[in-house]
């Protein structure tokens, strides 16, 4: 057993958890009702799985945010990827969750069933390896993900400079601009942010300071064990009582103020920010990543004729509202009836990090 395992065991110790809950109750008693947004989909799953919402006092409400990369990818992107997969000689590769998301007319998995060459990869390096192994195919990697994934894709591309049949379709999204867009919504009422652990391992906690200052919002970068989440909630409540708006780091094992500078440099060498459309949030300036002009030959959007699609979000699906914390999954009329993990209508029910999938699996 290594020290990491020992730590994670301690962080999921129910006795310590119970005492943290007692401390949270004491803190919450001195505050008006508050809402805390867990921004990251992995946190949503961890929180639901461990039953944390049921342990909190009723005055502390957890709201899920736009932190599931597959979920925030709009149908337009998906429809374009499906169109790409329909071009003779083209192979589309992506992460598994992307395949089952219903696009406007079909999913990537359904396109594959109709004969398109669609592959699941675990790492962007696998997509590069696929292109090397099959030089007569044009391999397009549909790159979704936040700042945790974007540098892995950038590094994979840099390692594939000699692989002339490897292309990127970048649909990456950036977390801080999305948070900024959330706060600009008139109906957005959140008192504290539980910030993503792995995104922050790359971009660093300092990346959120401008937002915390500007919006006077308490922030804590949290780890993923129940003890991490409970301690982070406690830290947020304590900030609220002090009327502070700091960016604190609970997940100190892997998150620092500046983050991983090597990863940031790799990402900046390959990508530049661009306006990007999010499911639920619409178009947000500087919230996506486009390949820099030096990589135009590898850019699927420059190389292939990706026609604009007549894309629609699924009828009745409230995924977009779930992603901004405006609606909880059980408030959607399709939740658990027309839409479940076996027959998902929207991406929030498909992705392993999706809020609807987490509520469905672990209860609301």
């Amino acid at each position, binding site marked *: 057993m*290594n020290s*990491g395992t020992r730590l994670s065991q*301690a962080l999921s110790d129910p006795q310590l958890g119970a005492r*943290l809950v*007692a401390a949270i109750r004491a803190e919450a008693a001195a505050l008006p009702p508050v809402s805390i947004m867990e921004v990251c989909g992995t946190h949503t799953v961890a929180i639901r799985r461990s039953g944390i919402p049921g342990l909190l006092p009723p005055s502390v409400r957890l709201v899920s945010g736009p932190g599931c990369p597959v979920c925030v990818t709009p149908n337009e992107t998906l429809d374009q990827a499906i169109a790409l997969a329909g071009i003779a000689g083209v192979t589309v590769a992506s992460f598994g969750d992307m395949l089952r998301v219903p696009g406007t007319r079909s999913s990537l998995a359904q396109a594959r069933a109709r004969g398109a060459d669609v592959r699941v990869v675990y790492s962007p*390096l696998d997509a590069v390896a696929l292109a090397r192994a099959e030089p007569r195919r044009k391999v397009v990697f549909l790159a979704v993900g936040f700042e945790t994934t974007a540098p892995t894709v950038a590094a994979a591309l840099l390692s594939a400079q000699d692989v002339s049949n490897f292309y990127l379709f970048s649909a990456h999204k950036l977390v801080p601009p999305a948070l900024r867009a959330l706060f600009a919504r008139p109906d957005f009422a959140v008192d504290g942010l539980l910030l993503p652990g792995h995104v922050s391992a790359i971009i660093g906690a300092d990346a959120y300071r401008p937002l915390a200052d500007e919006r006077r919002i308490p922030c804590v970068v949290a780890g993923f064990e129940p003890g*991490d989440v409970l301690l982070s909630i*406690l830290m947020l409540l304590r900030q609220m009582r002090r009327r502070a708006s700091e960016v604190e780091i609970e997940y*100190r094992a892997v998150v620092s103020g500046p983050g991983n500078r090597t990863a940031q440099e790799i990402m900046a060498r390959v990508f530049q920010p661009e306006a990007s459309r999010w499911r639920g949030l619409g178009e947000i300036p500087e919230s996506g990543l486009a390949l820099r002009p030096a990589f135009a030959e590898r850019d699927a959007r420059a190389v292939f004729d990706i026609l604009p699609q007549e894309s629609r979000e699924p009828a009745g699906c409230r995924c977009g509202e779930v992603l901004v914390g405006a609606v909880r999954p059980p408030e959607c009329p399709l939740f658990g009836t027309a839409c479940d993990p076996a027959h998902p209508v929207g991406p929030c029910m498909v992705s392993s990090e999706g809020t609807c999938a987490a509520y469905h699996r672990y209860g609301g």
Partner: protein
Amino acid sequence: MKVVERKGEMGTVEQAGVRREVSFAMLPDAAEGDFVLIHAGFAIQTLNEEEARATLDLIREVAAAGEEDG
């Protein structure tokens, strides 16, 4: 996961007897014996044991304080 071998930009990590080949492009200074966080085939950050212990100490401190108050 624990780094068991480094070879140029690549390396091998291990957890519970399962070994995997990952890229260290983002973590060039990681050494054998370090614990690293893996994402999509890449080592993305080193686990800082001292900082991890500090978090645990903080939790224990809060828990102990709660006991006294309660």
